[in-house]
């Protein structure tokens, strides 16, 4: 790669996004740099622009002002080069494709041959534990299973930059924690950079190198909490004192900025230790 280790993978400068329809300022004056191999979580109350920020990075939404560079090139160019994989908030599967074919879609787009695709799809099916469902259609799966298909699809081509919008939101606690661990190990294996949107404070702290806390209307960065827990992280990480300190730190940042939008009970629920 031509990108050196000290150049950011994503550089966002003075980013503002106003939706003409409804005249909503979804994002205002966002400055953010993501270094190679970072795992950055975006957290903030509903409607504060997390999904929009992800879409702007992925060049799916045009910024109103400011610039986004990915791997040193404009976001548009990065998209053309297929530099990133994306997991949307809803699973966005294709009803006419089987589970296996849904997972293989980006591989087809990249022109992989059938055997290579099949092999990768099988690996992905194992990863998200959907073996035996490869010939099912999405509407024959539960919501959580659908979301796992969409995660498998994004991971299938091992993108250097992964944009994930609440990928585990629809999953049960056990699956969620297992996939958290899987995601961490994939991330470390591939050395990819991850931008991860979540509503769960504990999930954000557990996974990330940094947690970006956003505040609503207009969406701004309220603060950034570096997470200094050592990797590899495991089940015991969630029991460390430092983990709870960091959870509290993020929660306080959230509370100070967005308390009127995220009720206290909800916050309590989100970070409930098991």
């Amino acid at each position: 790669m031509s990108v050196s280790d000290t150049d950011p993978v994503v550089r966002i400068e003075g980013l503002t996004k106003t939706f003409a329809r409804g005249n909503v300022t979804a994002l205002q004056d966002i400055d953010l740099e993501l270094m190679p191999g970072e795992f950055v979580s975006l957290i903030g109350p509903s409607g504060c622009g997390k999904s929009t920020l992800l879409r702007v990075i992925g060049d799916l939404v045009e910024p109103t002002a400011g610039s986004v560079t990915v791997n040193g090139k404009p976001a548009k160019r990065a998209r053309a080069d297929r530099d990133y994989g994306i997991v949307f908030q809803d699973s966005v599967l294709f009803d006419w494709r089987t589970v296996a074919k849904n997972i293989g879609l980006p591989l087809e787009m990249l022109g992989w041959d059938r055997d290579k695709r099949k092999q990768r799809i099988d690996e992905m099916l194992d990863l998200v534990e959907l073996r035996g469902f490869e010939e099912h259609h999405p509407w024959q799966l539960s919501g959580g299973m659908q979301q796992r298909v969409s995660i498998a699809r994004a991971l299938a081509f091992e993108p250097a930059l992964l944009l994930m919008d609440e990928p585990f939101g629809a999953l049960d606690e056990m699956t969620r924690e297992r996939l958290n661990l899987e995601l961490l190990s994939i991330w470390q294996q591939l050395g990819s950079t991850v931008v991860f949107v979540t509503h769960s404070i504990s999930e954000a702290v557990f996974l990330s190198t940094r947690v970006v806390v956003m505040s609503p209307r207009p969406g701004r960065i309220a603060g950034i909490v570096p997470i200094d827990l050592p990797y590899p992280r495991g089940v015991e990480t969630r029991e460390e004192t430092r983990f709870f300190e960091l959870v509290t730190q993020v929660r306080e940042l959230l509370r100070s900025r967005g308390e009127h939008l995220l009720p206290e009970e909800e916050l309590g629920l989100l970070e409930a230790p098991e």
Partner: protein
Amino acid sequence: MSGLIVTPSVGRRAARRAGDWVPAAVVFVLAIVVWEGAISAFHIQQFLLPRPSDIVSTFWTNRHTLWPAGWTTFKEALGGFAFGSLGGVLVATVVGRFRVVGNALMPIAIAANAVPIIAFAPIANAWFNPLSSTSKMAIAGVLCFLPVMVNTMRGLQSADPRQIELMRSYAASELEIWRRVRVPTALPYLFTALKVASVLAMIGAIVAEYFGGAFNALGVLIRSDAQILDFQTAWAGILVASLLGLALYGAVVLAERLVVRWTPATREA
């Protein structure tokens, strides 16, 4: 290996599908029985309504004129169906590429779709040789064209924007988005229209023949038999028309089953 697993379930599915038909078959047979019985019971004149058994036996004695006549009409309907539907799909495809044109044309197409095209049948005979099958094919074709075009256009436009966004994240070209998102989304819409069109095509061909056509055509036969008060033969002609109409419709349903395997209609409970 997987065949072992699939075969019994297919068998079971076929059995269940056959089971689905039982109520309809019972109602059908009952209706025929009631029809037959009512005519005897109320002494209904045969020119008002012949017995089903008489219709069938008349059909059998006249099968050598009725079947060729039916075939003539069926070919007209089929030709109109093919050309009209193909035209509808082509126009919708071209127009669908340009949203602006599509938006401008949609209301006009919907309005045109509400026009009773069949009213043009006598005029179409003046445009073409009244004895040829071209005029009938033309009416059937125009009847098929509009619903197919409107529905295909709607289908191509109703692609899920999130799916398009996903494809864009893969830097997919417009052609790829069209092929992998828009066309599969439009297929169920298309087949709904084709089912309607298959019925319209038969109606178009027969009604056009009422206004004149080759001597051995179903519509001409039904009309002339009715005029000489040979109602039983007219009814036998209607029977042939119904069977052919059902055959065309059934063929479209079959094609839909083969192509569109993922819509709720074909989903298993």
